[in-house]
């Protein structure tokens, strides 16, 4: 009989404790982020798809069209092309496409690039209906960054 009463009392007490916790939470401010309306700054170590770095001094890309990123990529995502204009010493980048459908974000391309011309972007709002939407023209993105 004593045990029976004890059980009822302690049980009831634990239920009240539970209710107290939830009501406390009820009045605390919400902690969720209302995503499409609010966003947090992305952490610096986030790996989005790769992107050409815009260099202030050169007013464009640092890429020297050496092609090592293309070679380093295990999935053959990168296509680089360049040409040497008449009289110029260095090649100029004319095409840099990334096939993001195959990219595993391994980062080998970024590591292999000696001038540091490519880096991970912070892009994460990526969704689409077609494969072609994920073949990025990074040179065009760079032009867009310029303006």
């Amino acid at each position, binding site marked *: 009989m004593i045990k029976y009463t004890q059980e009822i009392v302690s049980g009831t007490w634990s239920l009240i404790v539970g209710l107290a916790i*939830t*009501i406390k*939470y*009820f009045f605390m401010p*919400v902690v969720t982020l*209302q995503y499409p309306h609010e966003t947090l700054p992305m952490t610096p170590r986030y790996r989005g798809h790769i992107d050409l770095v815009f260099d202030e001094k050169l007013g464009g890309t640092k890429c020297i069209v050496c092609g090592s990123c293309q070679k380093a990529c295990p999935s053959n995502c990168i296509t680089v092309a360049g040409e040497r204009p008449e009289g110029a010493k260095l090649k100029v980048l004319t095409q840099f496409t990334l096939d993001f459908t195959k990219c595993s974000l391994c980062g080998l391309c970024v590591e292999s690039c000696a001038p540091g011309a490519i880096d991970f972007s912070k892009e994460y709002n990526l969704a689409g209906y077609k494969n072609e939407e994920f073949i990025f023209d990074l040179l065009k993105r760079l032009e867009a960054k310029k303006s």
Partner: protein
Amino acid sequence: MSIHPEVLRLLAFLLGIIGFVAMNAAYLVWLERKEAGHIQRRIGPKEVGPFGLLQPMADGLKLMTKQLIVPEGADAILFKLAPILVMTPAIMSFVTIPYGETLVPRNLDVGLLAVFAFASVNVLGLLLGAWGSRNKYAIISAARVVSQNVAYEIPMLVVVVTLVMITGTLNLQDIVIQQAGGFWHWNVFKLSASPLMPVAFIIFFICMLAETNRAPFDMAEAESELIAGAFTEYPGMGFGVFFMGEYANIVVGTSIATILFLGGWQCPFGLFPGVHWFMIKMYFLIFTVIWIRWTYPRTTFYGLLNLSWKILIPISFFNLILTSAMLKVF
């Protein structure tokens, strides 16, 4: 030919009740989702309309546009009848509930009895729907609902009998009028009649949760084990009506608790009694019902039956005996 004013009065009440039930069913879902959200420190619905206030309308429209499918092998008549059997008694219970001094559709002398008579049809509706849909989960759910309701009807009615012994009437309006004055006159604090009155209120409240199949006693739905229990096969508005019936039953249950224990439309300080006090008390109880749902996990089926047979029934009977002894002595 002139229409008798009584007919108009009843028509107005009929419309009022149906509107009240429909609004409550819609907006209690909203309240439930908001409250659940804030308890989990989220916001809850917020996109459809200001504060998500149009969300219930959107949900209702979605349910209404769905095809009503009767599953193969189901008993079509029972299957279609069941949601109505759950909804109708819930609406009919409102007929005798006094919301204010004059705001009562029909002041029956056996009001309390009528409400409990209607409330017991609810189980029948769930049972028939589950049985008629020819689904194993639904049938397990039906078996649970019935045994759960048998178990919880006993302590609930014993508590009510105790209360009727004190009040000496089954008329809900009279019960409210007896509690006039201030909150110390409410039945829940009537310690002179029985020192266990607050306990009786808690027992009543627990039984009401179980009777309306609310968490932590929602064995009829038990999504994690029975998919949706009795509602598994119901599409579109068939499910919607069950859902509305559930919320209507909560409103009835909390209204009865308000009337029997918390003094109905009486003011706690004896000032300005009226329908607003009824609403405040009722919605506070509904808030508590939702609060409880988002605090406790679902009990096991044995835990649920043990609670009733081993704890609630003995205590309620003890209270009954104690009260009758006290009534005899004093």
